[in-house]
């Protein structure tokens, strides 16, 4: 190469100082942020279990089956709250899932075009309501309505069942379950609706062309195609219900034992922590509350992970026909 070529602008160009530090700096900063995010979850797990350790070492796994919560005699157990969490979240899921599927069918297949966005937005707004306000409404509006109207009605028809026995009450498992239903329906609906909208139009057309009614088309094409998404959405909703502390604390009443009647007051893991944390005295009570939090964390994370795995596994690949496929004659 001639000496003159070394003067070529391309070979002589050097990056400015700003650029030389800019790239690594941005990469480093953003990588650090990612580390922070991962550290957060690790930190949460560590800290919660650490705070719970006095209770874990004292009660062990028997904590999960002890049906008592007595700060005075220092006898603590998670059983009433596991039960309450299971019952309230379970009922909420049972009610919310079909409701959400019906709403999603309406929004994707039935609603007139002009109504779709507005109604979908309204349903999403329901998810945006702060839960403390839902709890307030539960205490002052829904609770009395349950006590005066719904629960007596349930008792008169189904009173022979133990779950509908006892005195109607504004506060209790049933009211909490309904508040949770209101909370998780928009979440399940929003994900389900997205999944329904990915169903390829030509599959729907094929069904109509065979002479299906609209419901038959949904049953034949949309629902099977969306199976994984619906399950995943429901489980996500379940996770949300399990973790809700405030609205449940406001309407569930706070009892420390398992009760069979749905009208009775009770407690859930999250609500108990919220109710007792401030006034907790004594190391064992605080540690027991942290133990409840540890159990809650494990369940919530497990449910979340399972939901995502189901959605991922069940994703249907688009069946694209390539013209180059030669078929056997």
């Amino acid at each position: 190469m001639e000496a003159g070529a070394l003067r070529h602008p391309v070979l002589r160009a050097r990056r400015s100082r700003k650029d030389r530090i800019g790239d690594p700096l941005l990469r480093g900063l953003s990588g650090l942020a990612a580390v922070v995010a991962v550290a957060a979850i690790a930190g949460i797990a560590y800290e919660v279990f650490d705070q719970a350790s006095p209770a874990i070492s004292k009660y062990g796994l028997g904590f999960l089956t002890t049906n008592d919560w007595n700060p005075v005699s220092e006898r603590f157990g998670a059983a009433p709250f596991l039960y309450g969490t299971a019952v309230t979240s379970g009922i909420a899921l049972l009610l919310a899932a079909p409701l959400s599927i019906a709403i999603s069918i309406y929004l994707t297949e039935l609603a007139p075009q002009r109504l779709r966005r507005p109604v979908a937005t309204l349903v999403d707004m329901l998810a945006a309501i702060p839960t403390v306000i839902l709890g307030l409404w539960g205490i002052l509006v829904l609770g009395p309505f349950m006590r005066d109207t719904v629960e007596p009605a349930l008792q008169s028809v189904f009173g022979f069942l133990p779950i509908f026995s006892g005195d109607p009450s504004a506060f209790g498992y049933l009211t909490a379950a309904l508040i949770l239903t209101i909370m998780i329906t928009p979440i399940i609906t929003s994900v389900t609706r997205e999944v329904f909208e990915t169903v390829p139009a030509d599959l729907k057309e094929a069904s109509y062309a065979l002479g299906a009614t609209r419901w038959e088309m949904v049953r034949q094409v949309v629902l099977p195609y969306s199976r994984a998404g619906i399950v995943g959405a429901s489980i996500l909703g379940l996770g949300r219900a399990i973790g809700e502390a405030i609205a449940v604390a406001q309407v569930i009443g706070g009892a420390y034992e398992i009760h069979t009647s749905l009208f009775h007051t009770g407690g859930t893991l999250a609500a108990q922590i919220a109710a007792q944390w401030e006034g907790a005295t004594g190391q064992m009570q605080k540690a027991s509350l942290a133990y409840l939090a540890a159990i809650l964390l494990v369940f919530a994370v497990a449910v979340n992970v399972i939901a995502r795995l189901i959605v991922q596994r069940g994703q249907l690949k688009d069946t694209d026909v390539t013209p180059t496929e030669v078929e056997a004659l």
Partner: protein
Amino acid sequence: MSSESALLRRSEGLRRRNRVNRVVEISSTIAALFAVAVLLIVVGSVLTKGVDALSIHFLTTPTALFGEEGGGISNAIVGTAIVVASAAAMAIPVGLLVAIYTTEFAPSRIAHPVRFVLDVLNGVPTIVTAIFVAGLIVIPQGHQSGFALSVALAIVMLPIVSRTAQEVLALVPSTLKEAAHALGIARWRTTVRVTIPTAAGGLITGALLAIARVAGETAPVIILCSIFGQGNLTDPSQGLATIPFFIFRSSEAPSPSAHTEAWAAALVLIALVLGLNLVARAFYTRSRRRMEG
């Protein structure tokens, strides 16, 4: 059989199928109406019951001392504003940086787990996050503080901001970035000057939605910021009053006047939260249109 009879004859099977179809259509419509009705009932309750106590006095007077009546939520409004703003100041940059990392820099085998971790973080109940921050800050310091609350809210906001930011950044057409690189513009400059401005609308949306979400979060408040002095208005190193806490406490109080105050405070909070939500959505549709158009 001839087509005529096949077409005109309303067979029993067909009638039944149409009936079933009709039932399903009506039920689905009722379900949607029911959801909308619940929304209207709840918001309606807040509106009708809260508007009575809502007054300038209410908005500009601090909470009444224990046992007294006739207070307001001025300190709660200020407290919420400070706490949420601090949380946003922490969460938005970090969330944005994480999103930049996973979309621009990280190889797929790192980006995937990071996204997964963020999704898991999103599913952690807020009360558990609060206990974490309590152990981190409140217990060593020996007292509750607005700062601790901000940190907890920031952690809650982080996955929300990050996930929306990731989605929006991924939507920026790669042709745009390639054009910048082809011009010899450095990576970091492209990100800061091209990618982020193009995605700005969606980024703002994510931020607003996250803010709307944490403004109403009450569980962390119970754990981290429920004790505050009347005199402290703006110092985050001590406890601060917050609107959600006010609502929570007033809702559990026995007196009807406390309930009315709870509705009024709920009205303020719901206006803030729903307002932010609607603005965020409007932003999102506008920015999507701009990017695709």
